[in-house]
C-alpha cells in the first residue's frame, strides 16, 4: 500500500522532509510506519517525544491499522496559541 506521510515542526526539521509517500505492507499500523521512518531518517532515531498521530486529519492510536492512500501525520507536542 502507498501512504502519504506528513511531518511537522521539529520532526520535519530532523527528518529533512515534510511530505513524502511510503510503501508499507498490508496490515501495517501507525507504529510500523513510524518504526520504518526512524530507520529511514537518522534524525528521527533520537526522538523520544510524546507524539500524537493523525490519519486523514483525525487523531488515532498508535496501533491504528493503515489503508491504502491514507495521509498519516506525526504530530510533535503542539504549541499553538
Amino acid at each position, binding site marked *: 500500500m502507498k501512504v502519504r506521510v506528513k511531518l511537522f515542526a521539529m520532526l520535519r526539521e530532523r527528518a529533512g522532509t515534510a511530505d513524502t509517500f511510503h510503501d508499507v505492507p498490508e496490515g501495517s499500523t501507525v507504529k510500523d510506519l513510524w518504526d520504518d521512518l526512524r530507520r529511514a531518517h537518522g534524525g528521527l532515531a533520537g526522538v523520544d517525544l510524546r507524539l500524537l498521530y493523525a490519519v486523514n486529519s483525525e*487523531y488515532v492510536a498508535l496501533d491504528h491499522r493503515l489503508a491504502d492512500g491514507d495521509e498519516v501525520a506525526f504530530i510533535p507536542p503542539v504549541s499553538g496559541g
Partner: protein
Amino acid sequence: MYRLTDQPIELNELLAFVGDPAAGAVSTFIGTTRDNNEGRSIISLDYEAYPGMAEQEIAKLGEEAAEKWEITRMAIVHRIGNVPIGEASVIIAVSAPHRDDAFKACRYAIDELKKRVPIWKKEIYRGGEIWIGSQTGERFTTPPTPSSG
C-alpha cells in the same frame, strides 16, 4: 469563523462577526508574542500548522463550546508564519447573552487549542531557536540559520 491566516489578525473583523443584537457580552482573548520566555530574550515566533486539520480542530472547539455553554457566535483565528513581538498569534472572540458563558467558552477555546490543535511555534531568541513543546534540554536546540536570523 475558524481559520488560519498568514497576515496580521484583524480583531475588528472577528468582533463584527460575533456581534449580534441578542448578545449582551463579548469575551475576547488575544495571544501576543512576548519579548521574553524562561529567561530567553525573544526576537519573534515562527508558527507552523497542519493546514486543514488545524482549521478542523479549531472548528471542533467552537462546536464543543456551543454544546457546553449558551453562546451566540464564536470566532477563532490563528496566525501562521513569523509573528513579531507585540503582534497577535491568536484571537478568540465569543458573544453570548450573558457574560459567564462568554468568559467560560473563550477560556475553554484557548486552553483546548493549546492542547490539541496541530500548530507549533518556534521561538527565535537571541542565541538560538527552539521548538516550544519539543524542547528537552539543549538536545533539540538548533543554531539559528543565516536566513531566518
